[in-house]
């Protein structure tokens, strides 16, 4: 009797699992990158079950994509990685007839993502931002004085400044594709260079400040900065602004400021795309269309403090976001921002090796 019962139970589980397969949308996005209420809203509006996983490095996502069979329906690589993954055949073309809100996209952003994904055939922009410097204003001015260069790469690439800042803690992104262009920009070289001789020029800059960097990590600085555990982070704009917000909420006397370096900052784009082997492309399109909705995009940006590529969402953004030049830079700042393109395999190996040498001394 018991046996029959458990058999029926098992059959029921298998059946629901099969039925559930088509109803699920699996999204793989960056950590701390969405207002979680939106996830529930998507499930409610579409009746689809959303499985939402997060990562904190483009490399992890890329390896999953290139291994094939990642099982995800929507992924969010940065545009440089996206470009390479498109040529590896990792994505399927978007069916724009299923994206009723695609007209909401902002041409200013589209013009720039065009380099990576011509015609926007494979991806839509989710968020974009800059890579820059977050500081604990109180601590840094206490150490370096009132005229501390908090808006300049000099703060983090000048060993004299860094030696003093080391005592209160400095974090760098663990991403050579962010740090090396910044170092090249600092010394007036082409940040998008693929030439090994030019790339090598970044090494002494980064090695000189290595002893003063407490940690290379791509997400820990959000809370570390907000808690006052560290006083400087070289990181992504919205992450630092989130940390500013958390510190303000905690009311712990920590004041965080973000600046895109005056020397010029890397401008990056996170693009949503559908893997070629997505189990549920239908659901994936539904998710993209949901994200393209002006209200949804505005809610997301208001929460994560990143600019989005959605023009229609702009009237719905809170003043804290749309009015903040660190998020939506003015024309003059936009001029100074630069973009990069992906490294080929040889340059990539050179860069990774250099990065290991910088971090470990070997």
């Amino acid at each position, binding site marked *: 009797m018991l046996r029959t019962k458990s058999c029926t139970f098992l059959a029921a589980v298998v059946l629901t699992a099969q039925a559930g397969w088509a109803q699920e949308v699996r999204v793989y996005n960056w950590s701390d990158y969405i207002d979680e209420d939106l996830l529930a809203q998507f499930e409610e509006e579409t009746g689809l079950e959303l499985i939402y996983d997060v990562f904190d490095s483009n490399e992890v996502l890329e*390896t999953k994509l*290139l291994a094939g069979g990642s099982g995800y329906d929507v992924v969010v690589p940065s545009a440089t990685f996206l470009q390479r993954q498109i040529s*590896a*055949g990792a994505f399927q073309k978007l069916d724009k007839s299923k994206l009723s809100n695609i007209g909401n996209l902002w041409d200013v952003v589209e013009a720039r993502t065009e380099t990576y994904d011509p015609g926007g055939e494979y991806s839509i922009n989710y968020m974009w931002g800059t890579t820059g410097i977050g500081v604990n204003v109180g601590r840094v001015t206490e150490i370096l004085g009132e005229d501390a260069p908090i808006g300049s790469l000099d703060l983090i690439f000048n060993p004299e400044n860094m030696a003093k800042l080391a005592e209160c803690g400095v974090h760098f992104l663990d991403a050579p594709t962010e740090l090396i262009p910044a170092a090249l920009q600092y010394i007036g070289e082409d940040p998008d260079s693929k030439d090994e001789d030019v790339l090598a020029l970044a090494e002494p800059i980064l090695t000189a400040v290595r002893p003063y960097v407490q*940690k290379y990590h791509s997400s820990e600085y959000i809370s570390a900065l907000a808690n006052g555990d560290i006083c400087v982070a070289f990181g992504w704009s919205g992450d630092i602004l989130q940390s500013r917000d958390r510190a303000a909420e905690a009311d712990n006397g920590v004041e965080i400021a973000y600046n895109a370096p005056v020397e010029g900052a890397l401008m990056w784009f996170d693009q949503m795309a559908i893997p070629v082997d997505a189990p549920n492309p239908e659901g994936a399109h539904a998710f993209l269309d949901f994200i393209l909705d002006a209200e949804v995009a505005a809610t997301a940006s208001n929460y994560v403090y990143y600019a989005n590529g959605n023009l229609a969402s702009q009237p719905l953004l809170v003043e804290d976001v749309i009015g903040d030049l660190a998020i939506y830079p003015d024309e003059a700042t936009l001029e100074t921002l630069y973009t990069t393109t992906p490294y080929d*395999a040889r340059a*990539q190996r050179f860069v*990774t090796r250099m990065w290991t040498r910088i971090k470990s001394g*070997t």
Partner: protein
Amino acid sequence: MNIRRIALISVPYLWLLALFMVPFLIVFKISLSDIALAIPPYTPTLDISGGWTEVRSFFSQLDFENFEFLATDDLYWKSYLSSLKIAFISTFICLLVGFPIAYGMANAPKEWQPTLMLLVILPFWTSFLIRVYSLIGILSQEGMLNQFLMWIGLIGEPLTILNTNIAVYIGIVYTYCPFMILPIYATLIKLDGSLLEAAEDLGCSRTEAFWRITVPLSKAGIIAGCFLVFIPALGEFVIPSLLGGSDTLMIGKVLYEEFFANRDWPVAGAVAVILLLILIVPIVLYQRNEQKIMEAEK
């Protein structure tokens, strides 16, 4: 009868074939390939449908280039050496800590033994990852360990333990100690107590009896325990990446970089093949040596 015997003997070999040889051959094949921008990210891939010529061209494209590459960069041998050192020292500490625990367990009153055994196994009921993460909380600047040491007055200001090699040792020893304790305990519990009594009757001191009887007779457990700790510690990735600093050099991290940062599966494959050789060769040599001793004894 014969067939049954063969079938019985073949089980472990089939096991080895399916779970060791086949995966190894796949990795070995990838290590001979070239990097490509595709899914999967290497070439050539075997397409049997193309017939014999296809298979031949497949084999002609394989070469040992990646192994040669490993020799050109000192990062690799330095990482192997550093991993060997970390694994070796961790195994030794595990033995120092594990043997007395196993000895104490085996000599504890019979009714306590199941409880003690449970205490050793209990940590496994919590996810490995969670246990390593909680070590971060214990070892950090404001962590419990520093607070405790400051409270008892041993140190004046917090030590930097997290993100150093010391944290890696602590993590590995903590995680793998049960693998040392259990096999040693298993041999000690079977130890015939009358042998020790006989030794004492014949005028052997307790310490001498321990070194001349207990230790040699538990050798099998000690060796099994050392292998069980040494092998996973050598390729460990999670512990050094969560607890270690950016200057902690371990081959597991190098493998990760090859896979994730360089997308170079072929070089990653070559690193893995050499790692395996480093492990297998000493084990095979040891096995041979044991056999020789056994034959000599006969």
